[in-house]
């Protein structure tokens, strides 16, 4: 290519019929480059966003796996024979886990915090509201202290997992009822 008479000329095979005025103007070239740049930019942004979404999906997957692991751990505790000294058995779920936090190494600043709701009178509506957690026929008991904690048969828990992603704090919440599945 070369500039000729102020116009950008493409190298072409000389032709006897060639019009010396043919070729692209600078404006055309600039427009093309701009369109191309915009296209490249938008495609890049879309690709980056796709990658971000992929990473976020994976992070969410890791987060949900971490929550599932935590639930499995609590269920394992619940299924052990009742022994408050060793903090085993469903009766110890409240004292062992309530208000505790657990780090999740697979997520940046990942941390699971546990909240149990052992007071039958104040079980949040998201768990179905007031309910009988020790199956004694009423829903008016506070089963939060050590001794009566052994009376729990059903433990409403909320696991809140927070972690850093793209300089933002992400939160995944899990609400579950835990019970003893083993005999």
């Amino acid at each position, binding site marked *: 290519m070369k500039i000729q008479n102020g116009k950008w000329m493409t190298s072409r095979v000389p032709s006897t019929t060639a019009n010396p005025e043919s070729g692209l103007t600078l404006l055309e070239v600039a427009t093309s480059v701009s369109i191309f740049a915009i296209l490249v930019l*938008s495609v890049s942004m*879309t690709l980056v966003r796709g990658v971000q979404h992929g990473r976020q999906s994976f992070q969410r997957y890791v987060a949900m796996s971490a929550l599932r692991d935590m639930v499995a751990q609590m269920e394992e505790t619940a299924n052990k024979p009742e022994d408050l000294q060793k903090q085993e058995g469903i009766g110890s779920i409240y004292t062992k886990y309530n208000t505790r936090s657990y780090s999740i190494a697979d997520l940046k600043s990942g941390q699971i915090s546990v909240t149990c709701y052992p007071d039958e009178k104040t079980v949040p509506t998201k768990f179905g509201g007031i309910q009988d957690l020790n199956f004694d026929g009423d829903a008016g008991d506070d089963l939060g202290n050590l*001794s009566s904690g*052994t009376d729990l048969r059903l433990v409403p828990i909320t696991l809140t997992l927070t972690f850093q992603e793209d300089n933002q704090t992400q939160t995944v919440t899990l609400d*579950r009822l*835990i019970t003893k599945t083993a005999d």
Partner: protein
Amino acid sequence: MILVVIVGIGLMMLAVISLQVTLVHSDTRTTQQGVFEATQIRDSAAAQGLANVKTNEVLTPMSGGGATASWVNFANGSYYYYTTYDPAFAISTIRAWGRVPADETTSSCMTAPDSLSWDGTGWMLRGVEIFVKASRYIPRAPVYFGNGGIEKPMGGFEWGAGVDPTDPSTWIPVTSGASSSQDSSVPFESSALDHPFDYLYNGGTPTPASANPHPYNIWASQNPIGQFNTEAWFTNSAGVGFDPTINLTPAPTNAYYDMSDPTSPDYAYPVDPTIPDVQDFASQLWTKFKDAPGTTKLSSGSQSGTYGDLSTPGVTFVTGRLQVDSGDTFKGSGILVIRDNYDANVDADNTPGTRAILDIRGNLEWTGLVIVAGWAPSISVTGDATIVGALFGEDSVQSGGEISLDSATIIMNIQNNFRVLYSNSLFQPGGLVHDYLPMVKKEVVGIRNL
């Protein structure tokens, strides 16, 4: 120019593909989240159904919505479950579902997802089916005291510096101030022979079935300390070096008892950790029968009279002390539960207002199962007592939490005749007591996704 157009079109296609990939990622994430939430809600519903079945022995169909089947709001969705019971196989089935909205509009269908009228439009649904096999615990020994067994007999277990409950070599024996004892005449008789269920009503006839080899244990303990205390009570409580085999039938020195190995199930006082928690046993009885027709609830203090017979067995609760005064007779059949008034729901300090006491100064004649379970339980016999069936006892330390093995024991002071005569037929299906025995063995025997 053509090149620019071609590259441009290529880039646009790339952009479209990339956008689609992004949308797929987004949809995947949404679906993952929905499946996760629906599964957790489903599992919560299953947990509630399972807790119901295991605790309340749900034999009649029920649903998560109570009497009227309906979905219950839970977290970001709702759950539904129902149970069925197959009496032929004693199997409860729980079918539970969790759902979360997947579209902007969702159906308002309230029926179960396995119903023909179920409309799942707009919902992400997950279901599970759980099979729970239930069975009643059939007592296999005339006497069973949970936790640490009999409290502090001479030579029994006592806490002290350096004592490790798991290491018998560190145990300190009781040398003075024994809490439990019996008279030197050893008036306590524990018989593992199979007595006829109507033994008391037929003047002790016919003769109980012999045991060779022995079909039942003469005593069962929950742990080695309970075993240690029980043996100590028999051996030393009536005087150091007393023959512990007196009045135990079959005598544990018989060849078919393995006296060489305390861990053997054929040991005269075997440890059997599979025996259900007595407190749980009593608690289930209270939950199920406290308001049932035919149940008798007696208050603490002196009692006498007849509470059921061979044609009308029932459940009799005494909250506090069952005292049978001299000259009085307390007689009956079925299950007799002596309990404290501790309510784990309201009592936070583990100190009930009453203890669980069986105090026989007159006569006790009971056919069935006698349970002494509660705070600081004790059995005192200065009169004359006979139980045909079995005797269970356990302390309620920490509401069944079994905190301490030396305080989670039962005081047993026997100064006059006390006979516990095993009768297996009472507990077998069709037997007098069988239908009152709690379903203590409830195991999940199958689970599958719906």
